[in-house]
Every structure is written in C-alpha cells, then in structure tokens.
C-alpha cells in the first residue's frame, strides 16, 4: 500500500503536482497499474488539492482511461468504418477465440483485455489496433493469433515490433528511427509543394526576425491562408485578434488532435515534417508576441512523443526555440513539450483547451473566444498543425507564391487523407480546387458508391458529385476522404458514424447527447424493416433542431450522415420502409422468445406474423 502511495506521489511530482497536468498523470497511472483505481483517484485528489469528484469526471470522460483493470495487455481494436470494410469481423473473432474472452472484457487471469476504439488515425492501414499504446496495423486474423501468442508468452508490446519478425516490422521513413520504432507506414502517395515540399530549416525564422511582427502578420494575411482543421477561419485575422487581445502573456497551441475521424495526414506531417510545424509555431509566436507554446497530440500518437521531444531539443540547441531566437534579442518562445488529448472529437478548439487543462473535453461557453482568453486564460491562437506548417513556407517563399497555388478563396494546398475502397489509400498533398472525380482516379477507386468527405460530420456524396471541388468555396474539410465501394452497404457505414457520435458526444447538452442517440435508434429501426414514413420526417426535424440548439460543432454536424443520405441516397431508405404502416412491423416470435424459454413452451405458433 505504501508502495502504491509512493508510486502515485512520484507520478504527481513528475508533473510538479500541477492539477492542469492531471491527464498526463492519469495516463501515467494507467500505464503503470493498467487502470485508474478509486484509491489512486483519492490519492491524486489529496495530492493536487482537487476533490474526488473533479478527478472522477475527468477519468470517466476519456475512453483510453479505465476505472477497472483492463488486463496486463489491453487491446483496443479499431471498429471504425474503414476497419469494418477491411475485415474487422474476422480479426475481432480471431482475437476473441485466441484470447478466450469477448470484446469488452478481460481474461479471468487478468492478462489480456479486449476492447474496441473508434478512429485511431490509421485509416490507410486498417485493420489497426493499439496494444498497451503500441500501434499495430494491417492486421489479419492470422496476425491477430500471432500477437495473442506473444501476449500469452509475456513479450512486451513494444518488443513485438522489431526490424523484421513474425510480429511486424518498422514502417517507412522516420518510423524506423530508434526514437519512434513503429510499424506505422507513412503512405505518402503524393507530396506537394507546401507541407511536403522543399524546406530549409530556420530560413523562415531568420526572415521573420529581419522584419517587424506586424510585417509577418501582414504577409500571412496577404497569403489568404485559412485554417486547415475544417472550419477555414482566416489565419491572419485570427492571429491579429489574438495579438490585439489584452493579456500579460500569449500562447500558441498546435492542434495535432486530428479530430476529424478518417484523417491521418497530421500523423505523417508529425513523423516527417515535425520541425516545419514547430517552426510554424515560432513564426506565429513572433507575429503575435507569444512566449509559450504547446502541442496537443491525440493519445493514439503517443509513439511519436519521444521523437517530437528530440526535435524540440535539437531546435533549442540550434537557437530556433528558446531565448533570443535566431539571434533576435527578446524573441523568447518555448514549446513546453507534448501533451495529450484523448477524445477523438475534441477538435473543436474549446474542447481541446478543456482537455489540455486536465478536465473533461467539453466545449466552453463562448464568448470569451480563445483569442481573448484561451489556454490558462491567456489569449491563445489554436491552429491545426498543417496551418502552422504552411505559414513557414509563406514567410520563406512569399504570400504571392502561396496565392499562386489553389483557388481564389482557397489558397495553397490541402493535405488529404484518402482511405476505403481504393487501390492507393494514403496521404495526398494537392492544390485546392481539385475535384472529387480527379481524386478518385488518383487514388484508384474502381467502383465507388459514395465518398464521405470531411469525416462523419462532413458530406456524403454520390456519383453525381464528381465535379465537387475540394475547397472552402465548395466542399471544405479537414481532409478525410473515405471511399465506399458498391460492394458495401452504405447504411451500415452511416450507422457506424452515428454510433461514433453517440459515443463521442460529451453528454453535456441535451440535443446532442439525446439527438445523436435517437437518430441512430431510428436509423436502426429502419434498417430492421421497422421504420415508417413518419420516422423519415422525424429524423429531418430532429436534425434541424440539433443544428440550431447544440452547444458545439460536433452537435451542429452530427446529423449530417443522416441528412446527406436522406438527400443523396433516398432509394436506400425507400427500399427499407414497409408498404403497410397502419400495422407496424413487429417480430412477435423474437419478443416472446425469452418467456417461451423460461417456461418451456415451444413457440407462440397461434399468432400470425405480420
């Protein structure tokens, strides 16, 4: 027991007993003890001057934290749409059979726990799983059985990925560096001129310090760069708002949370262009006179943390971060390191801040906006990593060069994550304005039925939409494009999206918490042949209410999968609604089955089925 107390003390001390680092501490506890026990919660509360309730609400929010033991090995198998399209069922069955327990439970001896997780940022190499924070990709039933054997033998999860063994081998590029050592592959199919173009470290920063912050800001504004996280807010304007906000200190937060399910481009950017990103943060810091920076990584990218911290260390010794950066007296900017965001959908900036400060990832009420009062109440710029990376090239090569790429309103390039039924899933950096049809050809989609652009909350397009352009004018997105081939049932994928929203809603506001669940409930009734015409109407009404009354972007857009398919694929619904609706479809046999079994009756037989 005293060992336990000492262990918790040590974890708290590692993060300076700072309550805002609660998430880091909880993750450390989880890693050490394989769960966050009530005892650990009470100890941490005491140590940090928080209440049990404060910690409880944080712990219970994040699905990678658990309040019950989840096994010495915890397997999180991705059950997202791509995974399902690429063989999830078979892999899951192989895991369950080899381990001897079902998903959602732990073996009797406490060795292996099997759980599912939503999007992991590995859409180009599904089926993927996380075992004790180590990523495994391209799983097959056979590979699953090999992994289970290794777990039963007690091989540490990290050791299952080596240079080339039966378990798995390192991925390409930096993935094989000792500080990463991951089997994740980049799948960088088409590099473009901005994020993956030629880059000379430090060049942009040296140009920055030769100008005034106002000139840097003006250059970014002139580039017409807009946020790459999906919403497309003009970056220069955001920086300017923050620069003008009152506050003793300012802050730059890089959002590497990849909140839009189906995106994985930030993963590749972080692996291959980390310094470009960090330099972008420094450019922003110079322009808005910020002194503090933070990078928020999604929990699934934990394997990149050591590497990223090495890059930061290198940049500090190269005088590209730290004090008097690039020889400019008084230009001080420090990136504190990488912290964690654990909820897949916390992309909306306000949720990210709550998470970053150790609380539930719930949206804050606005106003105030982050630019006025953000991270620890500092005026804060929160930008997607791709946005920050682009500013480096804008400063280095000029706004005019940047504007020559893309379209009038959508300048520059967009890094897209393409997954699903195509020959070449992976990362594509293309100029804005490229059409969906061109992309389908590039990726080698043979028989597409639908393309989901922008993740579950984006748009579900049908074959008639090949001319849709990827741009803020036409179809904005954070870059996730999921191709659904004709061989897959589209409504099953839509159901998967709705399951995601039902789970990822923070639960705070009624129309989102209840609406997502009700839409899914109604969709499933329809899929089971129990739907009515009124259900279609009520789904539309409910969707409209969600758009108008929910608190944040997740709720505003959570009905999109339903609305889009009602609009673009009405025949799928029509085929499922029974003609006769005065007498509802009802499976009487199923409804009396439990009674029959209990009392020992054969069947209800006397009742006609409808």
């Amino acid at each position, binding site marked *: 027991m005293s060992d336990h107390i000492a262990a918790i003390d040590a974890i708290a001390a590692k993060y300076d007993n700072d309550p805002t680092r609660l998430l880091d501490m909880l993750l450390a506890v989880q890693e050490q003890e394989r769960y966050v026990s009530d005892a650990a919660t009470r100890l941490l509360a005491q140590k940090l001057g928080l209440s049990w309730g404060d910690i409880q609400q944080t712990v219970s929010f994040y699905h990678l934290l658990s309040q019950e033991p989840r096994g010495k090995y915890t397997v999180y198998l991705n059950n997202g749409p791509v995974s399902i399209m690429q063989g999830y069922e078979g892999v899951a069955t192989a895991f369950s059979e080899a381990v001897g327990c079902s998903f959602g439970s732990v073996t009797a001896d406490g060795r292996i726990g099997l759980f599912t997780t939503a999007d992991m940022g590995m859409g180009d190499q599904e089926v993927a799983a996380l075992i004790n924070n180590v990523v495994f990709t391209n799983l097959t039933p056979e590979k699953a059985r090999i992994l289970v054997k290794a777990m039963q033998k007690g091989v540490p999860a990290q050791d299952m990925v080596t240079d080339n063994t039966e378990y798995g081998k390192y991925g390409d590029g930096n993935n094989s560096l000792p500080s990463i050592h991951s089997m994740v592959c980049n799948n960088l199919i088409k590099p473009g001129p901005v994020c993956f173009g030629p880059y000379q470290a430090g060049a942009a920063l040296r140009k920055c310090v030769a100008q005034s912050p106002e000139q840097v800001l003006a250059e970014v504004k002139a580039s017409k760069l807009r946020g790459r996280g999906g919403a497309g807010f003009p970056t220069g304007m955001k920086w300017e708002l923050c620069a003008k906000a009152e506050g003793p200190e300012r802050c730059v937060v890089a959002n590497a949370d990849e909140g839009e399910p189906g995106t994985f481009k930030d993963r590749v950017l972080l692996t291959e262009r980390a310094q470009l990103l960090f330099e972008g943060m420094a450019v922003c810091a110079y322009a808005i006179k910020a002194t503090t920076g933070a990078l928020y990584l999604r929990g699934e990218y934990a394997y990149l943390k050591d590497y990223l911290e090495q890059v930061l260390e290198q940049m500090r010794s190269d005088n590209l971060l730290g004090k008097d950066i690039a020889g400019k007296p008084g230009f001080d900017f420090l990136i504190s390191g990488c912290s964690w965001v654990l909820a897949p959908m916390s992309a909306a900036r306000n949720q990210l801040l709550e998470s970053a400060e150790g609380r539930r990832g719930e949206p804050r009420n606005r106003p105030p906006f982050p630019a006025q009062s953000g991270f620890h109440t500092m005026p804060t710029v929160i930008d997607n990593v791709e946005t920050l990376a682009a500013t480096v090239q804008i400063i280095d090569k000029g706004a005019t060069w940047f504007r020559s790429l893309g379209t009038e309103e959508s300048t520059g390039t967009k890094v897209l994550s393409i997954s699903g039924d195509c020959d070449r899933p992976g990362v594509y950096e293309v100029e804005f304005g490229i059409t969906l049809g061109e992309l389908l050809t590039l990726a080698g989609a043979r028989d597409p039925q639908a393309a989901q652009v922008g993740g579950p909350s984006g748009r579900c397009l049908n074959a008639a939409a090949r001319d849709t352009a990827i741009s803020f004018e036409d179809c904005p997105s954070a870059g996730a494009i999921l191709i659904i081939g004709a061989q897959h049932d589209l409504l099953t994928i839509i159901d998967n999206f709705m399951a995601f929203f039902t789970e990822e809603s923070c639960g705070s506001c009624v129309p989102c918490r209840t609406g997502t669940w009700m839409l899914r409930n109604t969709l499933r009734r329809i899929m089971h042949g129990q739907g009515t015409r009124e259900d279609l109407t009520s789904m539309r009404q409910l969707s409209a209410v969600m758009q108008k009354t929910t608190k944040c972007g997740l709720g505003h857009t959570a009905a999109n999968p339903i609305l889009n398919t009602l609009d673009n694929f009405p025949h799928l619904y029509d085929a499922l609604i029974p003609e006769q609706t*005065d007498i509802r479809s*009802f499976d009487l046999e*199923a*409804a*009396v*089955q439990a*009674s029959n079994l*209990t009392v020992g009756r054969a069947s*209800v037989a006397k009742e006609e089925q409808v």
Partner: protein
Amino acid sequence: MSKPIIATASLAGCFGCHMSFLDIDERILDLVELVQWGKSPINDIKTFQQDCDIALIEGGCCNDEHIHTLREFRKHCRILVAVGECAIMGGLPAMRNNIPIKECLEEAYLNSPSTSDANPDKIFPNDEELPMLLDKVYPCHEIVKMDYFLPGCPPRADLIYGALVALVTGQEAELPYEVVKFD
C-alpha cells in the same frame, strides 16, 4: 344517418381509464344520443360484429394476446385513440422493461414471499391458453398506428368526454390546461 360506433379495450391496463370514462357521469346520456356501442368490456360484447368508427384503447401491450387484440382493433376501427399513460408509453407495467423476463417470472412465481412456499415444485404457469409475456411492455403506437393520444393516469373524464364529442361531431377538441395531465 347511423350513429358512429364506439369500441373500447383494456390491454395491459388497470381499467382505471375505463373507470374515468364512466366518471363522465350523467353526460353518458348525452353521449348515447350521439353514438352507439360496439365491442367493449363495458357492455361485454366480445367480438367485432361490425367495423367501428372510434376505439378507445387503454393499456400497453405486455403479451402476445394484446398484440393480437390491438391489431384486430386496427383492422376494424377507423380511429384508434390511446387512452392513458399505459397505452401511450407503457405506464407502470413498463417499469419491468429493464428487468429480464426470466427474472420477472422467477420473482413472480418462484421467489416472492407469497409464492415460494406455495410452489414447491417450482412450476411456471404454462397452460397453452395463457398468453406469453413479451420481452417488454410496448406502447400501442409501436404495434399499430395510433391516431390520437389522451394522456393522464387516468385521463380526466372531462378530457375523454371532450375528445369523444370532438371526434364524433368533427369539432376541434379543447384541451384546457387543467385537464391534460400525465398523472
């Protein structure tokens, strides 16, 4: 012109709604002027002798016989009215909806203080005439289309009377605040 025919049924209910209906007191004489009676527990007519215009349904569906009865009503009646909380949302019987049916039956016939001694052979009643319990109690509108809903436990007599007169005469029903209640 013949008078509209009214039928009533009590499914998984307590007959409280029927009692409340009878609470219209002397106004039943006015009602008789307006309608004639079809199948109903009130007059003990057990089968549909002809199709009816309006049926008042009390109670939700908790066994296969209720499903059968409700479907018959839908086939034979022009307008179905869900009367009372049980018809609308399952009501008190639906409190069992989150308890597995096996547990319900065991509690009722094997384990409760009043039955455990009386049923030493641990027998569940299983005569084939007995209807089978459904996995949960279903609101009527999940089984057939219901046209109107009169909430209350029971719905106030004034509400039932007002609604019936409105349906029969084709006028808009009045819903005074104090009459529409869920308890």
